[in-house]
Each structure stands twice: as structure tokens, then as C-alpha cells.
């Protein structure tokens, strides 16, 4: 049996850990962007419909749309935060 250098082994393990953090960051942001995107689009579409039906309430509908989208975007922001943590704060 060959003996493996302990420091080289440690370096390799460190590299693998960082590498899996990067993969995790990518998948986290990718899948995390899925739900908010569809949800915000749904909100926007319904707001278009609503404004066409009752145009006099436009500013109210638009305000509600923006608030709703901001709330539904928060999960996207969480996954962004987690991805940034995974990229910069691990290892």
C-alpha cells in the first residue's frame, strides 16, 4: 500500500467540500428562482386583467400587485442569500 500524504489529503478534502458548496449554491439559486418567478407572473397577469376590468382602480391594483410580488419574491431573496453564503462563507 502506498502512503498518502496527509496534507495533500486534507487539501483534497477541502477542495471537495468547497466544490460541493458551489454545486449547492447553483442548484439552490436555480430551483429557488422557479417558484417566485411563476408566482409573480401569476400576480402580474391577474393584475392586468383587473385593471382592464376596472380601470378607475388602477393605482390601487398596481400597489396591491407590487406588494404581493414583493412578498412572493422573498423566498427568491432567501435563496439568493443562501447561495451567496454558500459561495463566500464556506471552507
Amino acid at each position, binding site marked *: 500500500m502506498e502512503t498518502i500524504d496527509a496534507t495533500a489529503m486534507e487539501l483534497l478534502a477541502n477542495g471537495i467540500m468547497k466544490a460541493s458548496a458551489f454545486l449547492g449554491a447553483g442548484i439552490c439559486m436555480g430551483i429557488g428562482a422557479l417558484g417566485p418567478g411563476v408566482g409573480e407572473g401569476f400576480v402580474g397577469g391577474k393584475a392586468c386583467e383587473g385593471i382592464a376590468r376596472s380601470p378607475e382602480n*388602477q*393605482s390601487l391594483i*398596481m*400597489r396591491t400587485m*407590487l*406588494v404581493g410580488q*414583493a412578498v412572493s*419574491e*422573498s423566498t427568491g*431573496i432567501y435563496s439568493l*442569500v443562501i447561495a451567496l453564503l454558500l459561495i463566500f462563507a464556506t471552507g
Partner: protein
Amino acid sequence: MAKGKGGMLRIFIVFLIIEVALVILSGNFSRQIQVVNEEGQFELTHAPVHFDLQAKISEEFQHDKYVADEGHPLEIYGSEGLYNFFAKLSEKFTIFGDPTPIGTFRLLRMLLIVDLVLLTIGFLVFRALKTRPSQPQILFELLYSMFDGFVEESLGKKLIKFTPYVFTIFLFLIVCNMIGMIPIPGFMEPTRNLNVPLGLGLMVVFVVHVTAIAVKGPVGYLKDYMTPLMPLDVIGEAAKGVSIAFRLFGNILGGAIIILVVSSLVKFVLLPIGLNLFFGMFVGAVQAFVFTMLALSYISVAISD
């Protein structure tokens, strides 16, 4: 009108024919016909073109470091005085990135050019102000009254004083996004650098909160945040500025990279014109409008109960 269209088409066709003829004559795509002046007489030669896409793109991303490492000649196009001024300035103040002066210099020079364009337009329109308006005056009055309508719709009559702010952001951004189409070496959209959109986004957040305090009073303003979900609200407020900035930056930078890569793939024949039209005019105008409208809507969300 029809005559003008035909003229444009004719010019376009002539340019196309010249371009295709040049490509055919030069024979090889990686070579280009150049006029050289050797030993007192002019000569047409086939000179190889060095277009290194990889270097070009990496310059896009880390141009400060790239220029410093390669010992690349600085492309400052005869404005040494301005360059030296910025070099001195950036020794003392740096905000983001490398403290090398060339990136700062390019960005600030482009911003100055944009300001100059806006000031010139403003001066020309203002000088010829009449009761019976000229065509540019009609255009700008129409735009201004349109934005006046938007502000009145979303903020109400009391806060109509926000129109100049909103309209200034719109004009600045639309000139910024379109100035990259001018084919002069060294021209780029200032919004392609993250610092400009981020600065504008921070400004928007600042204006939103100051307006909210002014309208509701400090107590009413703080009362909005006294909920169990307070940390999330704070993150959300910060995310507004970040997302509004990154949206502008990502769209403009993506367009610039696509134009660069596709142009080099088709050897700069014809397709870049259409791409420039789409990314410069359409995406640039849409993003400027979206940034402005989002700023307005953030204010209107913040001042509503």
C-alpha cells in the same frame, strides 16, 4: 414619407453591397483589406485581423486587472489631462473593485458625455421655447405631461413635485442605455458598470424612505415596521434597491455580451445592426421605463397606509 423610406432602404442596400463585396474580396474571414502607406505609395494589402474574443470578454469583466496585468496600452484617446485628474482622484477615493484608474476613468468619462448630451438637448429646447411650439418642444412637452400624468395617478396631486425627479431618471437612463450604439471606440453604456445602477438604486431607496417619513411623520413611519416580521421587512427593503439595480445591470450587460459574441461569430456582417437595434433601442428603452416606473411605485407603496 414614402420617399424618405425608399431613401433609407437604398442607403442600406448600398452599405450591404459594400460590406459583402469587402468580405468576398478579402477572401478569408480572418483577414481584412487595409490601406497601408509604405515607401511613399498607397497599397491595398490583406492584413490578418487579431480579434481575441476571450480577451475581449475578460476585459469586459475584470478590465481593470486585465489592463494592469497585460501592460496593455491605455486607450484614452487623447484626453490625458482628464485621465490624470481621475488617476489622482481614484488614488484617494475608491468605492468598489480595483483602485486602478482606467476603469474609473472610462466610466466617469462616459457619464460626463451623457450629461453633456442631456445638457445640450436641454439648452437647445429651452432656448427655443415658444407659445407656438416647435417640433422638439412638442415632443418633450408630450413626454413631460405623460410623466406628470403617471405621477398624479400614483402619488396624487399633492406630490406632483416628484415629476422632475422621475423624468430626470428616465431621460438619464434612456440616454445611458442608447449611447453604446454609437460606433466610436471606447464608447460604452455607463449602466453596464454595476456602480451606476447600484448608485441609482440606493438613491431610489433613500428617496422612498425620506418621502415616507415626510408624509407619515417619524412615528407613523416606525409604526409600520413594528410587526413580528420586522427583520424580513428590513431585508425586503434592502432587496428593493438591489433588485432594481441588478435588473438594469443584467439586461444591459447581457445585451452587450451577446452583441460582442454573435458579431464575432458572424464576422461583423449585417446581424449586429439588428442586435444593436433590439438591445439598444428596445431593451434600453424598456429598462429605462421600468426603472422609472418601479421607483415611482415604490414611493407610492411607501406613502400609502
